[in-house]
Structure formats: C-alpha cells, structure tokens
C-alpha cells in the first residue's frame, strides 16, 4: 500500500481546490466566516443558562411584589414538624399491605386491557390505551430505578449525602473552598441549576419547621421497608446517618429550590396515564437537577444534600425561596407555570444570597376561585372560603394557616383510577401558556384584586383549563422534554 507523503497531500489538495475553483484566499475567508458564525450562533450552554436566569429575574422584577418576610404563618408553640410516616401514601401502603404504587400500577394495567386511558375514561382502542401507559413506563423508569421520588430514599444511592464522583483533592474534606463571595457563588449556583434542567430556581433559608421529624424508608430502599429514621440537626461538619437518625449539620443554612416545569397540555389530559407520564418525567429530570447541582457544590468545596420529595416539605421551602405562593390545592403557584411544576431542593452550607418571597395575588385569587375544588374527582380539595388552622385528616399537619385537603381521598382515588391524578393542577387558571394575553391577565389579577370573580367567570367562559382527550399529545408541537416551545422562546432559549 502506498501512503501519501505530506508534500503529495498538499499538492493533491491544491489540485482539488483548483479543480473546485476554491482559491487559498477564498478558503481562508470561508473558514474565518464559518468560525465567526459558529461562535456567534452557538453560545455555549453556560452562557445560555445564565441568560435564561437573567431573563427570569428581569421578568419577575416587573411582575411581582417582593416581600420582606415569609408569608407563611404558623401557630408558635402549637405547630410541630411533620412526621412523614403519616403521609397519605405511607398510610395507604400500610393499609394495603403493599406499596400504594403497586396497586395503582395493577389497576393501570387493567385499564389498558379494558381499553381505557384511566378507570372512568375510555381510549379509542386497547392499542391506544397501551400506548398511553407506555408513555408512563418510558418516562418513569429512571426515577423508579434510581430514586423512587426520593421519598424515604435520603442518603441512598444517587441521593447520597456524600460526594459521589467528585475527584479526591476537590472534595470538601480535601480542600477548603476557593470562592467564598456569596454574590459570585449565587450566580454560579443559579447558572448550574439552569444547566442541569431547572426551569425555576430560588434560594431560601433552611427552616427546620418544614423538615420532617422522621422519615419512613421507601420499600425500594436497601433496608427493610417501613423502618423509620429521625431527622435532626446537629453541630457536626458533614451530613451524617446513624442507625436511628439522619443528622443535618447546623451549618447548613441555605435551601436551593428548583422547579421542573410540566407541559400544560399533557397535564390537562388528567387523570390519565398521559398526564401521569409528565409528572414522572418531572421526577426523572429532578434526578439530574439535584444530583448534578449537589456534585457541583461539593466540587466547589461545600457540602450538599440532594432531596426530591424526601427530608422535608418542598412547597413551603419554595415559597420562602421566592418561587411562588401556596394555592388552595396545597401546591405551589408560580407566575411562570402556574401549578404545573414539580419541586426539588438541595440543602447546603455554601454562603448564598437569599431570594425574597413573592406576592402576585395568587392566594387572594384562590379565595374566590374554587375551580380545583369543584373539579377534583375525589372531592379532596377544600372548598372553604378562607384558610384554616385546623388539620382535616391525620395526614395533614395542623397549626399552619392554609387550606387543608383530604389527602387520603386524593391518594385513594389514584388507586381506583389506575394512575395518579393532577386535575387540580390542570384546571388551575394560573396554569397557562406564554401568550401575552395571559401575562396581561396575571397583571390584572395582581393589581385589581376586586375583579377576581370576573376573571374566574371569564376563565370558565373561554374554556381555559378544560380537560382534554389523551390522544391530543400525539399531534402536539413540542420541544425537548415536552417543554412548550413558546415558553422556551420567551426565556430566550
């Protein structure tokens, strides 16, 4: 075999270029043009993430009122931290003698065989029903394999409280942080949060009130199921687990809360398997967000605890991190995505600037609007005009001023339905797309609160939040992770 020497290659190239009519000057020009265009058109991912966060902050500053103090009220001396052993899902699992989700899945399979999208909702055929269920199987697999919603999975597997793959030499115990300025660190954290998939990110305090007193180990954890561990705070330097407790260092003073948005149209097929697939995708994306951000923090020399649904209540933490307000349905309402997001958080000892809680008129609006309560298929959402102090069920945590929902009714409906339900999220008037008309309405809701009843009637009259047939999703225009392309454009992505 004859190999080309460099000189022969050069002359061959020159001949080829001459044959193609490409002179050396033209070649250099086109190369330079190509490089310049590439540099201009393809900003690197970090810059894009930073830009997205800047656009978010700019938009927020125009449209919300920042509060100096937390809007969450508790009865001092009466309020107790919540025992997550008592969550509706844990109670139902104990009642059934099997994990609640096993029952939900079994009924879900039965629905497919009966040609249904959910127990009371027909699909066009068994094949279509199976395709809906398959969406769920495809979106929840990583969550189910790795983290199981994070509930009872504290310090297990990917949700480890210690560094996973940060190289030795960069771990917090090996080298102290090189950057300690809160402003710089906050910017880096928010950029990284966007980079690992957070659509919303805010920083709040570590408020022990929102942490569970104890957790119940998830049945998927490598522990006997249903064993419990206390969550305590201690004067230690690194997060620690003992036989009986999970100990968070008292040096942990910041909670980074991230919101993962859910496609509104998918949610409006609720209570179907298709809507459930979007929720499951949210959990799968959460793994990347919390694990990625935690490792980033650890590589910078600080400690971090990743948390999905575990360790504490995400909604009040998100409120104190300035992401939104608590709605009638007990979920977070944000100006950007309404009720359609899932929440996850990372606790850290990194010094970060706190975000301020916000008011955009959502709680006031919820007093008038009872759409989630009226349309809840399980009748689990409170229809009270005003928020209360008393719990409704043993799965509620009383002495906090909010609407209390019958969460047991909610979870029992999931088991009956063969799929989780998100009707309250889907019909919420704040769960809207990125149209300017919705932005204008949100502005009016905030600034003209006396007109709230009129907005509720108009929302109904215009058919917003109406539940849809599951098959709508096959023909939708969607972006990566079913993000609404318009929302993506709005945030300059």
């Amino acid at each position, binding site marked *: 075999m004859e190999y080309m020497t460099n000189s022969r290659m050069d002359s061959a190239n020159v001949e080829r270029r001459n044959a193609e009519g490409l002179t050396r000057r033209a070649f250099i020009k086109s190369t330079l043009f190509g490089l310049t265009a590439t540099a201009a058109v393809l900003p690197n991912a970090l810059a894009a993430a930073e830009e997205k966060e800047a656009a978010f902050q700019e938009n927020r500053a125009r449209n919300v009122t920042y509060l100096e103090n937390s809007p969450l009220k508790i009865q001092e001396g009466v309020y107790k931290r919540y025992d997550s052993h008592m969550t509706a899902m844990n109670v139902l699992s104990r009642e059934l003698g099997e994990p609640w989700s096993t029952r939900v899945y079994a009924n879900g399979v039965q629905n497919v065989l009966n040609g249904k999208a959910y127990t009371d909702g027909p699909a066009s055929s068994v094949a279509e029903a199976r395709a809906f269920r398959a969406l769920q199987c495809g979106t929840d697999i990583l969550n189910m394999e790795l983290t199981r919603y994070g509930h009872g999975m504290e310090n297990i597997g990917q949700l480890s409280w210690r560094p996973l793959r940060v190289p030795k030499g960069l771990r917090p115990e090996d080298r102290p942080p090189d950057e300690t300025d809160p402003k710089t660190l906050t910017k880096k954290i928010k950029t990284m949060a966007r980079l690992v998939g957070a659509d919303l990110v805010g920083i709040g305090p570590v408020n022990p009130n929102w942490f569970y007193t104890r957790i119940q180990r998830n049945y998927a954890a490598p522990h006997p199921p249903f064993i419990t561990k206390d969550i305590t705070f201690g004067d230690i330097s690194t997060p620690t687990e003992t036989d009986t407790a999970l100990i968070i260092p008292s040096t942990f003073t910041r909670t980074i809360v991230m919101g993962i948005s859910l496609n509104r*149209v998918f949610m409006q097929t609720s209570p179907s398997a298709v809507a459930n697939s979007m929720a499951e995708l949210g959990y799968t994306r959460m793994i990347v967000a919390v694990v990625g951000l935690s490792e980033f923090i650890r590589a910078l020399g600080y400690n971090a605890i990743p948390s999905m649904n575990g360790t504490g209540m995400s909604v009040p933490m998100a409120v104190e991190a300035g992401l939104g307000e608590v709605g009638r349905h007990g979920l977070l309402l944000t100006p950007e995505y309404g009720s359609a997001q899932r929440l996850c958080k990372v606790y850290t000892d990194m010094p970060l600037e706190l975000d301020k809680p916000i008011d955009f008129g959502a709680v006031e609006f919820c007093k008038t609007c009872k759409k989630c309560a009226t349309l809840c298929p399980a009748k689990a959402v409170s229809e009270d005009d005003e928020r209360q102090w008393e719990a409704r069920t043993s799965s509620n945590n009383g002495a906090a001023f909010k609407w209390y929902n019958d969460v047991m009714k909610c979870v029992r409906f999931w088991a009956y339905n063969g799929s989780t339900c998100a009707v309250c999220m889907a019909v919420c008037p704040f769960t*809207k*797309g990125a*149209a*300017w*008309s919705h932005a204008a309405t949100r502005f009016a809701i905030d600034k003209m609160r006396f007109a709230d009843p009129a907005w509720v009637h108009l929302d109904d*009259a*215009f*058919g*917003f939040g*109406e539940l*849809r047939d599951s098959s*709508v999703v096959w023909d*939708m225009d969607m972006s990566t992770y079913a993000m609404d392309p*318009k929302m993506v454009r709005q945030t300059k992505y």
Partner: protein
Amino acid sequence: MKEIILRLNGKELSFWAIWLVIVLLGLSLVVESYAEYEARAGICFAVLTAVVAVLGILLIRRWKAAG
C-alpha cells in the same frame, strides 16, 4: 388608500387607528389561542373581535350621518 386617509379628519383618523389596533389585538388573541391548543378561547376571541369590528363600523356610520 392614500386619498382615503387624506380625506379623513383628525377625529376620524384617531377613531380608525384605535379600531384597527383593537381588531389587530383581537386577531392576535385568536391566533395565540389556537397556537396554544385553546380552541374555545380562540372562537370566543374571534367572535368578540368580529362584534367589536362591526360595532365600530356602525358607530362611525351613525356618527357621520349625524354630521
């Protein structure tokens, strides 16, 4: 077109400018609603826009007739 515009007095010109803005806003709401899979809202906005457009024309006719 230019002649028609030149024939209008200041008041009429302002009226038609406002009318046009309202109709364009209405049409943009219709388009946005359909783009967002909100068909019923799109129909509602289309009907409202048409009503406003027709009312505008009737109003200016009556106004001109009254001198």
